[in-house]
């Protein structure tokens, strides 16, 4: 998230490749965030392991495509929204399916709010 934020901060100027790198970072965030929230605090069951690799590969291809400005202009925002919304949904799934992990989830939620609210 750190790199995405700093690239996003300079992206409006279109300088230092900031806008392109922000798009690339958005596509890289998507599998990393979903994977993290899939396995944290306790892994959920993945029906097929190759699905995870496939998802990483698709996002990596989209990130590379962004370097050449191939995807539609605003598509990266969808990737970012999916990363955020998907993470929230996965945390909800953990909350309801893993009651023993709710304390850890409360910590994550508190940390997130501390960063997001300001």
């Amino acid at each position, binding site marked *: 998230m*750190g*790199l995405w934020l*700093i*690239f996003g*901060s300079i*992206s409006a100027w279109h*300088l230092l490749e900031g806008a392109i790198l922000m798009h690339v970072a958005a596509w890289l965030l998507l599998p990393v965030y979903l994977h993290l929230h899939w396995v944290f605090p306790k892994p959920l069951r993945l029906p097929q392991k190759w699905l995870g690799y496939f998802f990483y590969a698709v996002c990596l291809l989209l990130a590379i495509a962004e370097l050449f400005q191939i995807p539609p202009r605003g598509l990266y925002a969808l990737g970012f929204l999916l990363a955020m919304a998907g993470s929230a949904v996965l945390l909800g799934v953990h909350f309801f399916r893993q009651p023993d992990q709710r304390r850890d989830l409360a910590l994550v939620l508190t940390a997130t709010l501390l960063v997001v609210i300001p």
Partner: protein
Amino acid sequence: MKKDLTNRWNVSELLLSLSVLFVLLFFTYGIFGYAPYIGFRFNPPDGKILAVYIQGKNEPTLKEGDVLVRVGANSLDDYHADNRLAFFKGVKPGDTINVVVNRNGTELAIPWVIPGFNQLEFNIRFFNIWWLAYIFWAVGFAAQLLLRPKNSTLRRLFIAAFT
């Protein structure tokens, strides 16, 4: 042997976090030192001028609510079509750029003099979200240094914080 591998992994993790910090510092310099101070701020999606920090000495001058049509040789559509096209790349204080805006349905050509560093524009840049990047970096770095056991979930956590 196992300890050697662990040490190497720790060193590469440390290099990763230091590299990310270097990128953050480089782009922070980009925000404050490299991006020119143009004297106004516009909304990139629609080109609307949101604030004018330094009033031009001659009329016509830019006003809040104007909509950018063209800056120099590049139109707003060119800017939208190419994420590498910068309106103000390489301009220096005192340079005059021809800015065409739409004001209440009328196009106006405005010779805009780049003012250079000014406190208002600096403040807008400073009181923005760039510093959150360092918070995320610090969280990732702290996780790297302090949290144990160092497993794949922990590594995903600090990679997520860095990315």
